Protein backbone atom coordinates (compact mmCIF):
# COMPACT_ATOMS: atom_id res chain seq x y z
CA UNK A 1 0.00 0.00 0.00
CA UNK A 2 1.30 3.44 -1.03
CA UNK A 3 1.35 6.34 1.49
CA UNK A 4 -0.57 9.46 0.40
CA UNK A 5 1.68 11.72 2.51
CA UNK A 6 5.23 11.35 3.48
CA UNK A 7 5.26 10.66 7.25
CA UNK A 8 7.89 13.45 7.73
CA UNK A 9 5.67 16.01 5.99
CA UNK A 10 2.70 15.00 8.11
CA UNK A 11 4.86 15.37 11.21
CA UNK A 12 5.92 18.90 10.15
CA UNK A 13 2.32 19.84 9.38
CA UNK A 14 1.11 18.58 12.75
CA UNK A 15 4.00 20.46 14.39
CA UNK A 16 3.03 23.73 12.66
CA UNK A 17 -0.65 23.33 13.57
CA UNK A 18 0.24 22.55 17.18
CA UNK A 19 2.48 25.62 17.27
CA UNK A 20 -0.31 27.85 15.90
CA UNK A 21 -2.78 26.34 18.35
CA UNK A 22 -0.44 27.09 21.25
CA UNK A 23 -0.07 30.74 20.11
CA UNK A 24 -3.82 31.05 19.67
CA UNK A 25 -4.40 29.55 23.13
CA UNK A 26 -1.80 31.89 24.57
CA UNK A 27 -3.60 34.92 23.16
CA UNK A 28 -6.90 33.47 24.35
CA UNK A 29 -5.60 33.23 27.91
CA UNK A 30 -4.24 36.80 27.70
CA UNK A 31 -7.61 37.95 26.36
CA UNK A 32 -9.56 36.21 29.13
CA UNK A 33 -7.33 37.46 31.94
CA UNK A 34 -6.27 40.97 30.93
CA UNK A 35 -8.11 42.28 27.89
CA UNK A 36 -11.51 43.92 27.80
CA UNK A 37 -13.99 42.27 25.43
CA UNK A 38 -16.54 45.10 25.65
CA UNK A 39 -16.52 48.20 23.52
CA UNK A 40 -16.88 51.27 25.76
CA UNK A 41 -19.07 53.87 24.08
CA UNK A 42 -20.32 57.23 25.22
CA UNK A 43 -24.09 57.16 25.47
CA UNK A 44 -25.77 59.97 23.60
CA UNK A 45 -26.79 62.72 26.00
CA UNK A 46 -30.55 63.04 25.58
CA UNK A 47 -30.84 65.83 28.12
CA UNK A 48 -29.19 68.43 25.85
CA UNK A 49 -31.59 70.59 23.94
CA UNK A 50 -31.51 73.92 22.21
CA UNK A 51 -31.74 76.86 24.57
CA UNK A 52 -35.19 78.36 24.46
CA UNK A 53 -35.99 81.94 23.67
CA UNK A 54 -38.32 83.69 26.06
CA UNK A 55 -41.48 85.10 24.50
CA UNK A 56 -43.78 87.33 26.51
CA UNK A 57 -47.36 86.21 25.94
CA UNK A 58 -50.47 88.11 26.98
CA UNK A 59 -51.88 86.57 30.18
CA UNK A 60 -55.26 84.84 29.80
CA UNK A 61 -56.99 86.94 32.45
CA UNK A 62 -56.67 90.08 30.36
CA UNK A 63 -59.74 90.93 28.27
CA UNK A 64 -59.50 90.36 24.55
CA UNK A 65 -58.40 93.48 22.71
CA UNK A 66 -61.25 95.58 21.32
CA UNK A 67 -61.18 97.79 18.31
CA UNK A 68 -60.63 101.34 19.35
CA UNK A 69 -60.17 104.54 17.47
CA UNK A 70 -56.49 105.07 16.84
CA UNK A 71 -55.25 107.64 19.26
CA UNK A 72 -53.29 110.54 18.00
CA UNK A 73 -49.84 110.55 19.46
CA UNK A 74 -49.29 113.52 21.65
CA UNK A 75 -46.15 115.25 20.59
CA UNK A 76 -43.64 115.42 23.37
CA UNK A 77 -41.81 118.64 24.02
CA UNK A 78 -38.34 117.32 23.35
CA UNK A 79 -37.25 114.27 21.41
CA UNK A 80 -34.65 111.69 22.52
CA UNK A 81 -33.38 111.91 18.94
CA UNK A 82 -31.90 115.26 19.79
CA UNK A 83 -29.52 113.54 22.21
CA UNK A 84 -26.46 112.08 20.55
CA UNK A 85 -24.32 109.76 22.68
CA UNK A 86 -20.60 110.46 22.24
CA UNK A 87 -18.86 108.64 25.08
CA UNK A 88 -19.57 106.36 28.01
CA UNK A 89 -17.84 105.62 31.28
CA UNK A 90 -19.18 102.95 33.59
CA UNK A 91 -18.00 102.56 37.16
CA UNK A 92 -19.43 100.17 39.72
CA UNK A 93 -21.48 102.96 41.37
CA UNK A 94 -22.06 105.49 38.58
CA UNK A 95 -22.35 105.83 34.84
CA UNK A 96 -21.04 108.97 33.14
CA UNK A 97 -21.90 109.77 29.55
CA UNK A 98 -20.97 112.55 27.19
CA UNK A 99 -23.78 113.64 24.90
CA UNK A 100 -24.28 116.22 22.20
CA UNK A 101 -27.51 118.15 22.63
CA UNK A 102 -28.41 121.04 20.34
CA UNK A 103 -24.78 121.24 19.14
CA UNK A 104 -23.52 121.54 22.71
CA UNK A 105 -21.52 118.86 24.51
CA UNK A 106 -22.73 117.91 27.96
CA UNK A 107 -21.47 115.44 30.56
CA UNK A 108 -24.19 113.60 32.50
CA UNK A 109 -24.01 111.31 35.49
CA UNK A 110 -26.61 108.76 36.60
CA UNK A 111 -29.74 110.65 37.68
CA UNK A 112 -28.96 113.84 35.70
CA UNK A 113 -31.78 115.24 33.59
CA UNK A 114 -31.50 116.58 30.06
CA UNK A 115 -34.47 117.78 28.04
CA UNK A 116 -36.77 115.94 30.44
CA UNK A 117 -34.91 112.64 30.07
CA UNK A 118 -33.20 111.18 33.13
CA UNK A 119 -30.01 109.16 32.70
CA UNK A 120 -30.66 105.77 34.34
CA UNK A 121 -27.53 103.87 33.41
CA UNK A 122 -25.29 102.80 30.57
CA UNK A 123 -23.94 99.70 28.88
CA UNK A 124 -20.84 99.33 26.76
CA UNK A 125 -22.39 100.99 23.72
CA UNK A 126 -25.62 102.58 24.91
CA UNK A 127 -27.12 104.84 27.54
CA UNK A 128 -30.52 104.31 29.09
CA UNK A 129 -32.76 107.34 29.71
CA UNK A 130 -36.21 107.40 31.24
CA UNK A 131 -39.14 109.75 31.02
CA UNK A 132 -42.72 109.28 32.19
CA UNK A 133 -42.01 105.68 33.31
CA UNK A 134 -40.77 104.82 29.81
CA UNK A 135 -37.20 103.86 29.01
CA UNK A 136 -35.30 105.16 26.02
CA UNK A 137 -32.11 103.60 24.76
CA UNK A 138 -29.57 105.78 22.98
CA UNK A 139 -26.83 103.98 21.09
CA UNK A 140 -23.29 105.27 20.93
CA UNK A 141 -22.77 107.34 17.79
CA UNK A 142 -21.03 105.15 15.22
CA UNK A 143 -18.34 107.70 14.36
CA UNK A 144 -17.46 108.04 18.05
CA UNK A 145 -14.18 106.21 18.40
CA UNK A 146 -12.22 105.72 21.58
CA UNK A 147 -9.91 108.62 20.77
CA UNK A 148 -12.79 110.99 20.17
CA UNK A 149 -14.35 109.82 23.43
CA UNK A 150 -11.33 110.89 25.35
CA UNK A 151 -11.02 114.22 23.58
CA UNK A 152 -14.68 114.93 24.27
CA UNK A 153 -14.22 114.32 27.93
CA UNK A 154 -11.16 116.56 28.12
CA UNK A 155 -13.27 119.19 29.81
CA UNK A 156 -13.80 116.81 32.76
CA UNK A 157 -10.28 115.98 34.00
CA UNK A 158 -11.48 113.77 36.84
CA UNK A 159 -13.30 111.49 34.42
CA UNK A 160 -10.55 111.44 31.79
CA UNK A 161 -8.17 109.21 33.70
CA UNK A 162 -10.93 106.77 34.41
CA UNK A 163 -11.91 106.60 30.76
CA UNK A 164 -8.36 105.80 29.74
CA UNK A 165 -8.18 102.81 32.10
CA UNK A 166 -11.60 101.47 31.16
CA UNK A 167 -11.62 98.11 29.44
CA UNK A 168 -13.80 97.76 26.36
CA UNK A 169 -16.07 95.23 28.03
CA UNK A 170 -19.81 95.25 28.55
CA UNK A 171 -21.49 95.53 31.90
CA UNK A 172 -24.31 94.08 33.89
CA UNK A 173 -26.72 96.92 34.58
CA UNK A 174 -29.73 97.16 36.83
CA UNK A 175 -32.94 98.40 35.25
CA UNK A 176 -35.30 98.36 38.18
CA UNK A 177 -36.04 94.71 38.92
CA UNK A 178 -34.43 93.48 35.72
CA UNK A 179 -30.73 92.87 35.29
CA UNK A 180 -29.47 93.56 31.79
CA UNK A 181 -26.37 91.81 30.52
CA UNK A 182 -24.52 93.49 27.70
CA UNK A 183 -24.13 91.09 24.78
CA UNK A 184 -20.49 92.08 24.33
CA UNK A 185 -19.85 90.75 27.82
CA UNK A 186 -21.38 87.39 26.88
CA UNK A 187 -19.38 87.30 23.66
CA UNK A 188 -16.20 88.09 25.56
CA UNK A 189 -16.68 85.19 27.97
CA UNK A 190 -17.82 82.87 25.18
CA UNK A 191 -14.53 83.51 23.38
CA UNK A 192 -12.31 83.63 26.46
CA UNK A 193 -13.23 80.71 28.67
CA UNK A 194 -10.17 81.24 30.89
CA UNK A 195 -11.53 84.67 31.90
CA UNK A 196 -14.59 82.97 33.39
CA UNK A 197 -12.42 81.01 35.81
CA UNK A 198 -10.57 84.17 36.86
CA UNK A 199 -13.86 85.52 38.20
CA UNK A 200 -15.77 82.49 39.32
CA UNK A 201 -14.95 79.04 40.72
CA UNK A 202 -17.15 76.12 39.72
CA UNK A 203 -17.05 72.51 40.89
CA UNK A 204 -19.24 69.53 40.19
CA UNK A 205 -21.83 68.26 42.66
CA UNK A 206 -22.15 64.48 42.60
CA UNK A 207 -24.43 61.94 44.22
CA UNK A 208 -22.54 58.70 43.89
CA UNK A 209 -21.47 58.60 40.26
CA UNK A 210 -24.25 60.88 39.03
CA UNK A 211 -23.63 64.55 38.40
CA UNK A 212 -26.33 66.66 40.05
CA UNK A 213 -25.22 70.14 39.09
CA UNK A 214 -22.42 72.65 39.39
CA UNK A 215 -21.59 74.52 42.57
CA UNK A 216 -20.20 78.06 42.78
CA UNK A 217 -17.07 77.98 44.95
CA UNK A 218 -16.24 81.67 44.76
CA UNK A 219 -17.33 84.82 42.97
CA UNK A 220 -14.79 87.60 42.53
CA UNK A 221 -15.93 90.83 44.13
CA UNK A 222 -17.04 93.55 41.67
CA UNK A 223 -16.79 91.14 38.75
CA UNK A 224 -19.70 90.92 36.27
CA UNK A 225 -20.57 87.56 37.87
CA UNK A 226 -21.07 89.15 41.29
CA UNK A 227 -23.47 91.63 39.67
CA UNK A 228 -25.54 88.72 38.38
CA UNK A 229 -26.58 88.01 41.95
CA UNK A 230 -25.04 84.57 42.21
CA UNK A 231 -23.31 83.70 45.44
CA UNK A 232 -20.84 81.24 46.85
CA UNK A 233 -22.33 77.75 47.44
CA UNK A 234 -25.18 78.32 44.95
CA UNK A 235 -25.83 75.20 42.85
CA UNK A 236 -26.80 75.83 39.22
CA UNK A 237 -29.68 73.49 38.35
CA UNK A 238 -30.75 74.75 34.94
CA UNK A 239 -30.16 77.51 32.40
CA UNK A 240 -32.94 78.46 29.98
CA UNK A 241 -34.76 75.21 30.65
CA UNK A 242 -31.65 73.12 30.04
CA UNK A 243 -30.95 70.98 33.09
CA UNK A 244 -27.28 71.22 33.96
CA UNK A 245 -26.69 67.62 34.97
CA UNK A 246 -23.81 66.81 32.66
CA UNK A 247 -20.70 68.47 31.29
CA UNK A 248 -22.25 68.13 27.85
CA UNK A 249 -25.32 70.11 28.94
CA UNK A 250 -23.09 72.82 30.42
CA UNK A 251 -20.97 72.90 27.26
CA UNK A 252 -24.13 73.12 25.15
CA UNK A 253 -25.18 76.22 27.09
CA UNK A 254 -21.68 77.68 26.73
CA UNK A 255 -21.70 77.08 22.96
CA UNK A 256 -25.07 78.74 22.42
CA UNK A 257 -24.83 81.53 24.95
CA UNK A 258 -24.00 84.11 22.26
CA UNK A 259 -27.34 83.54 20.52
CA UNK A 260 -29.77 83.76 23.42
CA UNK A 261 -32.07 86.74 23.91
CA UNK A 262 -32.62 86.24 27.63
CA UNK A 263 -31.25 84.10 30.41
CA UNK A 264 -33.21 82.23 33.02
CA UNK A 265 -31.17 80.45 35.64
CA UNK A 266 -32.51 78.14 38.35
CA UNK A 267 -30.24 77.79 41.34
CA UNK A 268 -30.37 76.12 44.73
CA UNK A 269 -29.38 78.45 47.54
CA UNK A 270 -29.28 76.38 50.70
CA UNK A 271 -32.55 74.46 50.57
CA UNK A 272 -34.36 77.11 48.59
CA UNK A 273 -34.76 77.00 44.82
CA UNK A 274 -34.42 80.40 43.17
CA UNK A 275 -34.97 81.67 39.67
CA UNK A 276 -32.74 84.43 38.32
CA UNK A 277 -33.74 86.23 35.14
CA UNK A 278 -31.62 88.42 32.91
CA UNK A 279 -32.16 90.28 29.68
CA UNK A 280 -29.48 90.39 27.05
CA UNK A 281 -28.96 93.70 25.37
Amino acid at each position, binding site marked *: MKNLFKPEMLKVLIGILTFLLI*IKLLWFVVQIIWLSPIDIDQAEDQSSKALYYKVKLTPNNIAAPQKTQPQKKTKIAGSIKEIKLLAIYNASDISVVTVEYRKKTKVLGTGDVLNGFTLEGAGSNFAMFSRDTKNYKVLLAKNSKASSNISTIKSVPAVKSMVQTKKALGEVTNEGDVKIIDRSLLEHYANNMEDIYKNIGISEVKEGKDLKGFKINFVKKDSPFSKLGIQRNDVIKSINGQEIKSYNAAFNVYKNIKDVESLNMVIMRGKEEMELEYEIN
Partner: protein
Amino acid sequence: MQMVKKSLLIFMALWFSLLLFMPKAELYHTVEKALEKQDVKLNETSIDEGLFSLTLKDVTVYVKGIALAHVDEIDFFTLLFYSSLDMVNLKVDEALHAKVPALTKEAHFAHNIFEPLTVSFDANGSFGVVDGKFNGMDNVVRIDFVELGNISMIQSFLIKDEKGWFYEKSF
Protein backbone atom coordinates in the same frame (compact mmCIF):
# COMPACT_ATOMS: atom_id res chain seq x y z
CA MET B 1 24.03 26.55 9.84
CA GLN B 2 21.02 24.30 9.78
CA MET B 3 20.41 25.15 13.42
CA VAL B 4 20.51 28.93 12.71
CA LYS B 5 18.16 28.46 9.77
CA LYS B 6 15.75 26.45 11.91
CA SER B 7 15.87 29.01 14.76
CA LEU B 8 15.23 31.84 12.30
CA LEU B 9 12.31 29.95 10.83
CA ILE B 10 10.82 29.31 14.27
CA PHE B 11 11.32 32.97 15.19
CA MET B 12 9.63 34.12 11.97
CA ALA B 13 6.74 31.71 12.54
CA LEU B 14 6.37 32.89 16.11
CA TRP B 15 6.42 36.58 15.07
CA PHE B 16 3.91 36.02 12.28
CA SER B 17 1.53 33.90 14.33
CA LEU B 18 1.68 36.37 17.22
CA LEU B 19 0.57 39.15 14.86
CA LEU B 20 -1.94 36.96 13.10
CA PHE B 21 -3.71 35.81 16.25
CA MET B 22 -3.33 39.06 18.17
CA PRO B 23 -6.79 40.05 19.51
CA LYS B 24 -6.50 43.57 18.10
CA ALA B 25 -10.06 44.69 18.80
CA GLU B 26 -9.80 43.49 22.41
CA LEU B 27 -6.49 45.32 22.80
CA TYR B 28 -8.22 48.46 21.53
CA HIS B 29 -11.10 47.96 24.01
CA THR B 30 -8.49 47.68 26.78
CA VAL B 31 -6.99 51.00 25.68
CA GLU B 32 -10.53 52.44 25.69
CA LYS B 33 -11.00 51.18 29.25
CA ALA B 34 -7.77 52.89 30.34
CA LEU B 35 -8.86 56.14 28.64
CA GLU B 36 -12.25 55.95 30.34
CA LYS B 37 -10.51 56.39 33.69
CA GLN B 38 -9.30 59.76 32.36
CA ASP B 39 -12.90 60.66 31.31
CA VAL B 40 -12.04 60.14 27.65
CA LYS B 41 -14.28 57.93 25.51
CA LEU B 42 -14.07 56.99 21.86
CA ASN B 43 -17.18 56.19 19.82
CA GLU B 44 -16.59 54.60 16.44
CA THR B 45 -18.92 53.30 13.74
CA SER B 46 -16.73 50.35 12.77
CA ILE B 47 -13.63 48.45 13.86
CA ASP B 48 -11.85 46.53 11.10
CA GLU B 49 -9.09 44.08 11.97
CA GLY B 50 -6.42 43.54 9.34
CA LEU B 51 -3.48 41.17 9.31
CA PHE B 52 -1.19 43.73 10.88
CA SER B 53 -3.58 46.60 11.45
CA LEU B 54 -6.72 47.86 13.12
CA THR B 55 -8.83 50.52 11.44
CA LEU B 56 -11.43 52.64 13.20
CA LYS B 57 -13.95 54.63 11.18
CA ASP B 58 -15.80 57.81 12.21
CA VAL B 59 -14.36 58.17 15.66
CA THR B 60 -15.87 60.77 17.99
CA VAL B 61 -13.72 61.76 20.94
CA TYR B 62 -15.65 62.55 24.12
CA VAL B 63 -14.00 64.27 27.06
CA LYS B 64 -16.19 64.31 30.19
CA GLY B 65 -19.13 63.48 27.94
CA ILE B 66 -18.49 66.38 25.56
CA ALA B 67 -17.90 65.54 21.91
CA LEU B 68 -14.75 67.58 21.36
CA ALA B 69 -13.35 66.07 18.19
CA HIS B 70 -14.16 63.80 15.27
CA VAL B 71 -11.72 61.74 13.22
CA ASP B 72 -12.75 60.21 9.90
CA GLU B 73 -10.29 57.34 10.20
CA ILE B 74 -7.68 56.06 12.63
CA ASP B 75 -5.38 53.33 11.43
CA PHE B 76 -3.11 51.47 13.81
CA PHE B 77 -0.42 49.32 12.21
CA THR B 78 2.19 47.15 13.91
CA LEU B 79 4.95 44.78 13.01
CA LEU B 80 5.95 44.75 16.70
CA PHE B 81 9.41 46.18 15.90
CA TYR B 82 7.75 49.08 14.05
CA SER B 83 4.34 50.59 14.86
CA SER B 84 2.47 53.53 13.44
CA LEU B 85 -0.77 55.40 13.95
CA ASP B 86 -2.39 57.42 11.17
CA MET B 87 -5.27 59.81 11.51
CA VAL B 88 -7.29 61.32 8.69
CA ASN B 89 -9.35 64.50 9.04
CA LEU B 90 -9.28 65.34 12.71
CA LYS B 91 -11.84 68.11 13.27
CA VAL B 92 -12.27 69.79 16.64
CA ASP B 93 -15.55 71.26 17.87
CA GLU B 94 -16.12 74.83 16.68
CA ALA B 95 -16.29 76.07 20.27
CA LEU B 96 -12.57 75.28 20.50
CA HIS B 97 -11.54 76.93 17.25
CA ALA B 98 -10.30 79.96 19.18
CA LYS B 99 -7.90 77.71 21.13
CA VAL B 100 -6.76 74.93 18.82
CA PRO B 101 -6.45 74.50 15.03
CA ALA B 102 -9.77 73.52 13.50
CA LEU B 103 -8.56 70.80 11.14
CA THR B 104 -5.74 68.28 11.00
CA LYS B 105 -5.94 66.68 7.57
CA GLU B 106 -3.39 63.95 8.22
CA ALA B 107 -1.28 62.97 11.19
CA HIS B 108 1.26 60.16 11.36
CA PHE B 109 2.90 58.85 14.54
CA ALA B 110 5.64 56.24 14.39
CA HIS B 111 7.64 54.18 16.85
CA ASN B 112 10.42 51.73 16.17
CA ILE B 113 12.23 49.35 18.46
CA PHE B 114 15.65 50.86 17.73
CA GLU B 115 14.58 54.09 19.45
CA PRO B 116 12.25 52.64 22.09
CA LEU B 117 11.76 55.88 24.00
CA THR B 118 11.05 58.09 21.00
CA VAL B 119 7.85 58.70 19.09
CA SER B 120 8.18 60.74 15.93
CA PHE B 121 5.26 62.40 14.18
CA ASP B 122 4.28 64.67 11.34
CA ALA B 123 1.00 66.31 10.47
CA ASN B 124 -0.60 68.79 8.15
CA GLY B 125 -3.76 70.81 8.45
CA SER B 126 -5.12 74.31 8.90
CA PHE B 127 -2.03 75.16 10.99
CA GLY B 128 0.37 74.25 8.15
CA VAL B 129 2.84 71.38 8.17
CA VAL B 130 4.63 70.18 11.30
CA ASP B 131 7.02 67.47 12.29
CA GLY B 132 8.11 66.61 15.74
CA LYS B 133 9.44 64.16 18.24
CA PHE B 134 8.60 63.05 21.74
CA ASN B 135 11.71 62.05 23.60
CA GLY B 136 10.79 59.79 26.49
CA MET B 137 14.32 59.80 27.84
CA ASP B 138 14.28 63.55 28.58
CA ASN B 139 10.47 63.82 28.61
CA VAL B 140 10.57 66.57 25.99
CA VAL B 141 8.22 67.13 23.09
CA ARG B 142 9.29 69.39 20.21
CA ILE B 143 7.15 70.35 17.24
CA ASP B 144 8.69 72.24 14.32
CA PHE B 145 6.46 74.20 11.96
CA VAL B 146 7.80 73.41 8.48
CA GLU B 147 5.08 75.36 6.69
CA LEU B 148 2.92 77.96 8.36
CA GLY B 149 -0.85 78.03 8.14
CA ASN B 150 -3.26 79.68 10.55
CA ILE B 151 -1.44 79.53 13.89
CA SER B 152 -2.86 82.71 15.43
CA MET B 153 -4.67 80.79 18.18
CA ILE B 154 -1.54 78.91 19.30
CA GLN B 155 1.13 81.48 18.47
CA SER B 156 1.47 82.56 22.10
CA PHE B 157 2.71 79.04 22.94
CA LEU B 158 5.30 79.01 20.14
CA ILE B 159 8.91 80.18 20.03
CA LYS B 160 10.72 81.48 16.98
CA ASP B 161 14.36 80.84 16.14
CA GLU B 162 16.41 81.16 12.91
CA LYS B 163 14.77 77.97 11.54
CA GLY B 164 11.26 79.15 12.19
CA TRP B 165 8.46 78.62 14.69
CA PHE B 166 8.52 75.68 17.07
CA TYR B 167 6.83 74.39 20.21
CA GLU B 168 8.79 72.77 23.00
CA LYS B 169 7.63 71.47 26.33
CA SER B 170 9.25 69.29 28.94
CA PHE B 171 7.24 67.26 31.42
